[in-house]
């Protein structure tokens, strides 16, 4: 299997706090990876490094064997210009905890903006695809609604459709259900499950939904205090954790 993401000793520090202290992991094409761990463990920060919303201070982070946010020539690392970074992000979709839909646009416009502005695709084609995506996430009738007219679950489903409209090769989910009322969590997880089953989408999911992680993911990574404590198939990590820290965390959330 082709490796899509490769992290080697990824290190990130805010001021005097080391948030990531050397993360090594790989994500293969078609793999679904869940990152779990207590709050402040660095799991969201790592996810944000993957599309360069945060810049890493040391180590190497590759997407399709190319450095993310940098370029390496003759042993030296160069920062990439704004446009090159934007181009890298085109292939990586991201879904945020707080949805971050554009409030001044309708659901349809939210989905259409990036394909038209970034990929310069013809408007009619993008519109058609946007409608199809809305239908897919069960919101065909909400095309002309603005975000503040939608429930949290509906907003998150539009946000997923917005990311999918760019036809990304990798989807990042940053606690996609944490800001939702409990009864709305299911509808978002259904859409994500469908993405795995139907598209075989490669995904990295930072989540607290252990049941969903066990059911859908190929690999579970447990992070604590900026390091990967253990990783493996869900049955192993959730069922027979080898580390004391993993056991302590799971006993609190399961």
């Amino acid at each position, binding site marked *: 299997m082709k490796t899509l993401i490769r992290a080697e000793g990824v290190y990130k520090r805010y001021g005097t706090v080391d948030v990531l202290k050397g993360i090594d992991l790989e994500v293969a094409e078609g793999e679904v990876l869940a990152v779990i761990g207590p709050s402040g463990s660095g799991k969201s920060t790592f996810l944000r490094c993957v*599309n360069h*919303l945060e810049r890493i201070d040391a180590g190497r982070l590759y997407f399709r064997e190319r450095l993310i946010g940098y370029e390496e020539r003759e042993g030296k690392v160069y920062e990439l210009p*704004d*446009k090159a970074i*934007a*181009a890298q*992000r*085109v292939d*990586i*979709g*991201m879904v*945020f905890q*707080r949805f*971050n*839909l*554009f*409030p*001044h646009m309708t659901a349809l416009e939210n989905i259409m*903006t*990036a394909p038209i*502005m*970034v*990929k310069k695709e013809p408007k009619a084609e993008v519109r058609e695809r946007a409608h199809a995506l809305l239908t897919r996430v069960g919101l065909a009738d909400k095309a002309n609604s603005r975000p503040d007219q939608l429930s949290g679950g509906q907003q998150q489903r539009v*946000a997923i459709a*917005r*990311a999918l409209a*760019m036809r990304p090769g990798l989807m990042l989910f940053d606690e996609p259900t944490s800001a939702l009322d409990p009864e709305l969590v299911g509808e978002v997880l259904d859409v994500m499950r469908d993405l795995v089953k139907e598209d075989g989408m490669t995904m990295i999911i930072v989540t607290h939904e252990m049941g969903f992680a066990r059911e859908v993911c190929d690999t579970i990574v447990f992070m604590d205090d900026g390091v990967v404590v253990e990783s493996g198939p869900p049955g192993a990590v959730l069922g027979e954790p080898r580390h004391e820290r993993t056991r302590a965390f799971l006993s609190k959330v399961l």
Partner: protein
Amino acid sequence: MTTTRQTAGPDARTRIQAVPLRHPGRWVGAGVLGFLAIFLLQGWVANPRMEWKVVGEYLFSPAVLTGLGTTLLLTVLAMVVGVAGGIVLAVLRMSPNPLLSALSGFYIWIFRGVPLLVQLLFWYFLSAVVPTIGLGVPWGPTFVEFDTNMIITQLTAAVLGLGLHEAAYMGEIVRAGITSVDPGQTEAAHALGLTRFQTLRKIILPQAMRVIIPPTGNQVVSMLKTTSLVFAIAVPELLTSIQGIYSRNFQQVALLTVACFWYLVATTVLNAGQHYIERKFSR
């Protein structure tokens, strides 16, 4: 069965029928103010030295209306320069490039720090120190050259003075608007592959408008009145025209009343427009 349904409102037996609290102070206050208002108005309107005939004569006179037109034109042009300049200044101020950010800060420091009247006079008298303005290589050959007095006419001096001064204030207003937008919006746009400039234009500025528009409305109203300062460099706007007339017929108060009338008409129209635009953008 006991009825638990009460669709007819509160129980009539417990309804409160209180005697309203009286406010005698308000009535006394209104009476005193009303008396004073009538007294002052009567003193002004019925004053024999107040030439109402002259007011009527000049209210719609061509000289006054042309002056009003120039005032409105100056307001529009100065605000266009101010808003465009303000957006540029705000974007530069927030740029990661420290040189650009410092440059914007320096501009704002200068143009907010020097009195507007001084700035107007400065532009007007620019030709005294810079007699010609040319395009060419510094210290090298010049391709085209103009007489400064040809380019910086009274009107351009006025627009430059008012507009560049306004830009410094608009810069701060636009910056406040941009900072008010949730940083998650920028992240979402970046994650979709939009560049910094695309994000600013399509995502951030439209949302910043809600915060930018109300103070900008204030600035327009304020600008309309501030244009009267350009009488100092003899641009024939409303106040200059009025002064020109009363320097001949010595009816200062009557003519200033004409000026007040037109300034009030214009600000009232602008206030209504501002109210409408604010309602539209607060959605």
